[in-house]
């Protein structure tokens, strides 16, 4: 939780500040064959919303697309990622930024 003095919020709390509408359909797809050979996994640290999480048991990337902030950094960092704008004006709607 937030502490008044230091103003440090968890990422979940930060993401909670962003207004959005989410579809039940991901706007992100991965070429998972490339992931299995990937050594660096830049997707897991380049994303400001930490949408990509490595699932060790399933040996694949878990994509929490509903947290996406639509910056595009992931698709720039890795060509296994196919990214599209969320359809019909869904996704984020900033009020204060």
């Amino acid at each position, binding site marked *: 939780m*937030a502490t*008044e*003095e*230091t*103003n*440090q*919020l968890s*990422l979940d*709390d*930060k*993401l909670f*500040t*962003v207004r959005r*509408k989410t579809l039940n359909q991901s706007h992100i797809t991965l070429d998972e064959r490339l992931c299995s050979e990937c050594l*660096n996994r*830049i997707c897991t*640290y*380049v*994303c*400001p*919303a*930490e949408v990509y999480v490595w699932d060790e048991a399933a040996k694949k990337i878990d994509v929490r697309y509903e947290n996406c*902030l*639509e*910056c*595009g*950094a992931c*698709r*720039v*960092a890795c*060509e296994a990622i196919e*990214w*599209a*704008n*969320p*359809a*019909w*004006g869904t*996704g*984020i*709607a*900033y*009020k*204060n*930024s």
Partner: protein
Amino acid sequence: MTKCEVVIVGAGPAGIACGYVLAEAGVDVIILERGQYPGAKNMFGGIFFADQMNKLIPEFYTEAPVERFVAKKHYALLINDSEVSLNIDSEEHKKPPYNHSYIVRRSVFDKWFAEKAKAQGATIICGTAVTDFVWRDRRIIGVTADTADDDDNVLLADVVVCAEGANSMLSEKAGLRNRLSMRARCISVKEVIELGKDVIDERFGLTAREGAAYEYFADATPGMLGDGFIYTNMETLSVGVGVVISELYGRRNPPSPNQLLDRFKNHPCIRPLVKGGKTLEYSAHMIPMDGFRNLPRFYTDGLMLVGDAAGFVNNSICHEGVNMAMASGIMAAETILANRQERRYDARALRQYEHRLKNSFVLQNMKNSRDFIDILRTHKELLNNYPHLVQDVITSYFKVSDVPKSTVKRDISRMLRSRVSVVKAARTVMALMRGGI
């Protein structure tokens, strides 16, 4: 299938400025915007550099949702636990037109600007992301969009202007550039932190609508090419950091952008400025870092790129993008108006757009600072060693002790000689000057 004269993709400063000028001249222009409203998906630092805006809408700042004007500038190198900084507090900048520098929030400001373009007669359709182009004989003749109504997802036009911003997928689809590389984009994150006007005025030494722009380098993003910033809105602060994406790649224990921001906020020189505040919104956006040498092509048959989509950001000391976005949008509009009689918008006709860019500050400034980022990239000592050295020199010089100053000076000069190759430092400085700092 609907048809209009000009389709503009994206209602940011570039697209709206383009639409404004066209609509004013009576052109049938439609702007398609993916967000629920213009500004819904936009974020920047930021300072709106407003000379273009002031020409388009004289004294716009008297009615636009501007937070504050930039009365104070603060450039700082963060070094370990302290900072070395330069303050610019100019009386001249406190008078209209305030050095054309206004602090705004894009989610509010873009909406206002879009209304102005509508008043000129531009049509703006929100909630519509453009997915691709429509081609005929290798010429772009329109766009497809993801409207809810599947039958009506094509919009034809005499000419298309792509004002998509930094994450431009259409410029790739048009073949004007390769897929974006991670050296060509910076990822930045920001928090808008509420403190109230009184607290902000007191902490930053401001009154009335005076605002402050604080830019941080060196340990703002330790060992990486990036920067941090604080801008004062009226009741809130915009606090953020950005880092070139390739700088994260291959690092041991790479931080995420969010972790970098938390570290920045926790730096002993930053913490007192933000403490006690409440985070109202977290946001993320990319910044073009293409640089003059790696810019895409700006036009093809039936299409022009403007603003961030074309890579027009001058990244020397701060990110100067909105003025270039507006200027390029206006130049694209002027190019269209000049060719409107013949209705010819093939690549030959649109070459005029590039001429206009070359003769303006847009490409000239990009050219002047063409080496700046490359030098920082290849001379990592500028970020990693020299700032710390400056810090050590200053700390020893001002240290209160009974060692005579002459001895201190001697020690400093020894320290300098052992840690810097004078020749190398001189070369770096020369390179920076040539690079257009």
